[in-house]
């Protein structure tokens, strides 16, 4: 009760006439974008200074005595410059062989349909074969000795590492940003201030530091992507606090759920073998969820993409995004097997089809773009991707002829001002509000657009422009671009293509959503009503965004940086204790449930196609 009374006194004080509040509101408009820029620049520097630090998991010893490090779990060997182990021997094929490690520490060599063939200790390899320390590989007559890295060597390398990035300084800036923004919202609400808003911002600040603490407890140092996500989530919290203050606390609760999902998924991804094995289960679960949605879904605001269970409504398609990324990612040995790709194509088709059935064409488009990126990552085949786009365009036209409201959206596109009280209602108001904010905004909580339908979800970009200014809205977009930079920057040193493909797919989902949300609301693109990752109000979307973030985190191989990867030292230690006895008979690659059969005609990997995606000669 005493607490209640104290808060009421605070609200009355905030609502009172005070010159300080006026000056505060006027000034904080300029401070917030500067702080945001500082936070993002610090994150960017932290990502950049952590240069791609290649791990070393083994060596190939050349005839001349030189040792070439194996920097990934999946390495190609060949004459091509883009081979991970690039050897200039005329008898080698461009992509001759792959040397791949699974998560138990067992190594295998794959013959990539080389001309000269692959021999291990003189025995020809058909398809693949396990190798162990000291084995002699003969590729097209070139003799290479395989040497696995010992824990001692790994440890020595670890002592020569760059110091940990000082993430906590950036977090101090972020906390200041959150505090200033939260207080501005209090001032704007005045006497009508709700306790939940105050509490939600305090909880947000606490959650930011607790997450950092958790990462430190896991003896990890990097916190850039989390900082970026918390920055965006703070903007989301402001959007909720201004549009539906009574939901502020609930939204922060959902954020906690999202952060929990992030850590859970990240932890799950640590074990590549487990993650790979779970792919089909997760994919099936995703399909099941969509099927239930199609059959039992409820229609809220046009599309039938909601599912209500026990009074709790959520959008299954948001969670299926995570399943989609899981299903799309693959380790390199699977990239050789086309059958896997066909399975994924079927899965993607089912997802997009289900969404089209629900009438949620925005999300269908998001899945389709994620599919394109995954397909390109896996095959490197631009032609196939181009064909997919053509096919999708035809499907889109078909959809427009069947579903008139889709055609309507396209008719309104670029013509919103022709029907400001009809089909262009939301877009024209979004543009008007965005222009009202100028570069620095009218101040958090001081906007008007929030009274327009779906302002805090579909029109959230315009809401950011209106209340926090164009600069902040642009910074929100740049924050997401930082995640892309992170992915592209660190994927070069990633352990497995599984992580790289998953991170890229997650980025693609974020990017296409931002593109459609931000520029659909201001009539540059068709208005599809997808969410702005982390910022749009809503439970499913926020949790899914944090979930997808875990994939991005998993491609960071800086030493002790990402909690989503197990430290190399620990891997090697545990393996040293129980190294599997190397089998003398025909070994079998068991990195996953796809057992590798020598006469499996699914192995129609075409080294030529693999070679030519980045022509460099």
């Amino acid at each position, binding site marked *: 009760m005493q607490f209640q009374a104290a808060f009421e006194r605070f609200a009355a004080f905030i609502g009172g006439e005070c010159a300080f509040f006026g000056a505060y509101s006027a000034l904080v408009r300029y401070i917030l974008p500067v702080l945001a820029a500082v936070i993002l620049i610090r994150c960017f520097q932290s990502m950049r200074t952590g240069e791609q630090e290649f791990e070393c998991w083994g060596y190939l010893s050349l005839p001349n005595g030189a040792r070439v490090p194996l920097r990934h779990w999946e390495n190609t060997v060949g004459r091509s410059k883009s081979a*991970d182990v690039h050897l200039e021997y005329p008898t080698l094929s461009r992509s001759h062989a792959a040397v791949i490690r699974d998560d138990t520490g067992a190594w295998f060599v794959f013959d990539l349909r080389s001309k000269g063939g692959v021999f291990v200790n003189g025995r020809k390899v058909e398809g693949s074969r396990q190798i162990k320390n000291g084995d002699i590989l003969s590729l097209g007559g070139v003799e290479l000795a395989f040497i696995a890295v010992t824990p001692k060597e790994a440890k020595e390398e670890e002592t020569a590492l760059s110091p940990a990035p000082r993430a906590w300084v950036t977090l101090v800036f972020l906390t200041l940003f959150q505090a200033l923004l939260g207080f501005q919202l209090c001032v704007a609400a005045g006497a009508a201030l709700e306790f939940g808003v105050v509490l939600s911002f305090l909880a947000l600040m606490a959650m930011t530091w607790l997450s950092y603490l958790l990462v430190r407890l896991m003896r990890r140092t990097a916190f850039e992507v989390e900082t970026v996500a918390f920055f965006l989530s703070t903007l989301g919290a402001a959007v909720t606090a201004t549009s539906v203050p009574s939901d502020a606390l609930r939204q922060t609760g959902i954020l906690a759920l999202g952060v929990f999902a992030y850590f859970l998924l990240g932890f799950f991804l640590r074990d590549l073998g487990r993650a790979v094995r779970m792919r089909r289960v997760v994919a099936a679960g995703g399909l099941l969820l969509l099927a239930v949605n199609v059959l039992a879904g409820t229609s809220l605001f046009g599309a039938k993409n909601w599912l209500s269970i026990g009074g709790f409504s959520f959008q299954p398609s948001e969670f299926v995004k995570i399943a989609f990324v899981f299903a799309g990612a693959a380790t390199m040995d699977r990239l050789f097997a086309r059958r896997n790709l066909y399975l994924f194509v079927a899965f993607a088709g089912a997802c997009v089809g289900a969404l089209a059935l629900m009438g949620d064409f925005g999300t269908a488009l998001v899945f389709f773009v994620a599919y394109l990126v995954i397909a390109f990552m896996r095959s490197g085949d631009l032609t196939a991707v181009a064909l997919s786009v053509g096919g999708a365009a035809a499907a889109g036209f078909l959809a427009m002829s069947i579903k008139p409201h889709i055609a309507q959206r396209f008719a309104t596109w670029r013509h919103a001002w022709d029907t400001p009280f009809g089909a262009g209602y939301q877009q024209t108001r979004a543009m008007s509000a965005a222009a009202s904010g100028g570069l620095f905004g009218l101040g958090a909580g001081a906007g008007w657009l929030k009274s327009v339908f779906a302002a805090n979800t579909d029109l959230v970009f315009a809401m950011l422009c209106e209340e926090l200014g164009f600069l902040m809205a642009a910074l929100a977009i740049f924050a997401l671009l930082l995640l892309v930079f992170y992915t592209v920057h660190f994927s070069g040193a990633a352990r497995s293509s599984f992580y790289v493909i998953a991170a890229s797919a997650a980025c693609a989902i974020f990017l296409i959503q931002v593109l459609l949300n*931000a520029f659909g609301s*201001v009539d540059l693109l068709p208005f599809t009503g997808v969410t702005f990752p982390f910022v749009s109000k809503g439970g499913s979307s926020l949790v899914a965004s944090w979930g997808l973030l875990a994939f991005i985190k998993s491609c960071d191989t800086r030493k002790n940086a990402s909690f989503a990867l197990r430290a190399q030292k620990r891997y090697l230690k545990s393996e040293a204790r129980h190294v599997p006895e190397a089998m003398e008979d025909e070994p079998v690659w068991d990195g996953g449930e796809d057992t590798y059969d020598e006469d499996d005609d699914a192995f129609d990997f075409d080294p030529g196609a693999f070679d030519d995606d980045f022509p460099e000669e």
Partner: protein
Amino acid sequence: MKRVSRRTTALFALVWAIVLCLLIFFTQLAVKGERWALFSANGNIYAGGALLAGTLLDRSGEILNEPGVGGARLYSDSREIRTATLHAVGDAQGNIGTGALKVYAPKLAGYSLISGVYPRKGENVYLSIDAQLCRAAYKALSGRKGAVVVANYRTGEIYCMVSSPSFDPLNVPDLESEKYEGAYINRAISSAYTPGSVFKLVTLAAAIENIPDLFERTFTCDGGVTIGSDYVKCTGRHGAISIEDALAVSCNSAFAELSLELGAETLERYAKQLGLTESVSIDSIKTASGQFEKAGEGSADLAWSGIGQYRDTVCPAAMLRFMMAIANGGKAADLTLLRRSGIKALLPPPDKRILSAETAEKMSVLLSYNVYKSYGEANFPGLELYAKTGTAEVGGGKQPHAWFAGYITNEDCPFAFAVVVENGGSGRSAAGAVANAVLQEAVRRYGNK
């Protein structure tokens, strides 16, 4: 791995799309942001279609219109000023399309690309009009339909712009009645009237520049001229008459002769050059354009067109601008409804030469002579007046439109004016009296300080 890693660059396609869209959006914001922000549904600065921000003041700082509590806008406390300045200020519903509330809404809202409409208090916009002068003008019109415009011919600022009928925006009468016919039209800038004899100044300007012996000539007036089967009637039988006297008594015979001599082509060229047939700009407002139709050479219609009848029409604001040019040595300052202040006031006002200095000088002598000879200086006490009347026949058994246009050169009163009284009868007595009332008020307020 290297190959798969490199394929992450595919994401750049999306990144570039986003960056490109962001650039396009910002460009649009820079180009169209003002229009977007001033969308009347924008709840940040509008409520029920009325601007929530910005105060409209007259040149002396008298508040004409300001945002009130809860969205409705407040007009002046004085009913007379509300009525007299209605057309300059505009009505709440925006029916008066040229009202300042609409035209200067971006200024009132205080929009800028950098701060948007923050802090939503808008800005003070000082109009160039003088509310008291407008009140005097509206009073002088005393319920008759018509328009009065007065402007400073040195700066282009409009000091008085009144259109009648007008009404009190706080007590809107039944606008369907005949009394309020066309009450939403600002007659000063959105109407064009048959000019009658005021148009003789166009013919005069053409004659001065094209007929070398104009001032040596003697015209003969027998009470009219027969042209073919038609007869151009004069206002009297003036006998042998010089150009000076012909203008002073507004002799139709003399000007019919000049018109035929100059030809339709030349007259049209002058009407256009003097800005009477085309739309004139007042800031972003476009005035109604006038009309001069070329009649057949040697025809009575041509004669009539040269004396402001036939199908001639002129907008009062355009006539005002013509007078400003004569007063200002041939250069017409650009008309504006915004008070010139700050750095702008120190710079020379933008203008356009529409007459040679020589012609303007010659015309000013004749305009002064008009007053001395015909209009009676006693009717305009204390005014150094240069003017021309017009009594435009409109047919249909109606009284002619009364025009009075010119300027004064009293100290600190560089004012040009144009007055039209619809169906007011004689130009001198009807429009002249209105002009006198307004100019006396102007001299009282601005002269001999």
